[in-house]
């Protein structure tokens, strides 16, 4: 077992276990914490694949931003000690059947598929390359999606403020 295999399996186990805990935990704040673990492990996978910038973004934005946001809203809407009710059995069974069936179907399909896998490129992606790609308008340039995303973020920000503001009534 190589180091990489080991690290991958470690992260995978963390991800799967904490994912399960996220969706089953009866304490909502704990669920958010478990989600944080999942997101951190994911960024570990990105490091493993030498996408350092992406991993950093994942850590700061996802783990740092979104999860904090979620925790804030949890604190705003529920008590610390509040326990979520257990969903009804039939609901759980139906959902489990659907999820397991989908997972089995997808995994079978994946395992049957042959991919042309290239030799591993261990180089890290230069931050300059990313920045130039992000603002370039030529081939492999992402200026337009970048601008669209900035507008989207602005709109989302204004939208959330308007939505969450207290109505005068």
């Amino acid at each position, binding site marked *: 077992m190589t*180091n990489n295999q080991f690290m991958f399996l470690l992260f995978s186990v963390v991800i799967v276990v904490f994912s399960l805990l996220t969706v089953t935990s009866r304490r909502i704040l704990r669920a958010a914490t478990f989600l944080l673990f999942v997101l951190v492990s994911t960024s570990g996978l990105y490091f493993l694949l030498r996408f350092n910038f992406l991993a950093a*973004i994942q850590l700061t934005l996802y783990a740092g931003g979104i999860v904090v946001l979620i925790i804030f809203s949890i604190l705003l*809407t529920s008590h610390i000690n509040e326990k979520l009710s257990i969903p009804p059995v039939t609901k759980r069974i139906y959902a*489990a059947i659907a*999820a397991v069936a989908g997972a089995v179907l997808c995994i079978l399909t994946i395992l049957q598929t042959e991919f042309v896998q290239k030799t591993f490129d261990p180089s890290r992606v230069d931050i300059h390359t990313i920045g130039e790609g992000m603002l370039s308008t030529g081939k492999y340039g992402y200026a337009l999606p970048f601008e669209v995303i900035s507008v989207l973020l602005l709109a*989302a920000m204004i939208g*959330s403020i308007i939505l969450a503001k207290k109505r005068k009534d």
Partner: protein
Amino acid sequence: MFEGVPIHWFLVLSTVMFFIGIYGFLVRKNLITMLMSIELILNSVCINFVAFNKILYPGHLEGMYFTLFIIAVAAAEASVAIAIIINIYRRIVNIDVENMNEMKY
């Protein structure tokens, strides 16, 4: 091949994560936990993109850019969702999805 880790491993992992997210979305009543399930789903997709990029097309960066944009969209989505949730909480003092059934026959 990435030093003994074939792409299938990544894909199986992301699939498992994806369907755990689906399960959570279908089962959880609390809106915030449903939102967390959605984050799980988004994350599994991100893993897919990154793995495809690095292992199948090492010379390119499309997968990485996609992941970046997905993270940005997820941030926007989370902020709007939470604004909506808070608004709902103000109105009906709980955030159970089952109570939000005005739009039926």
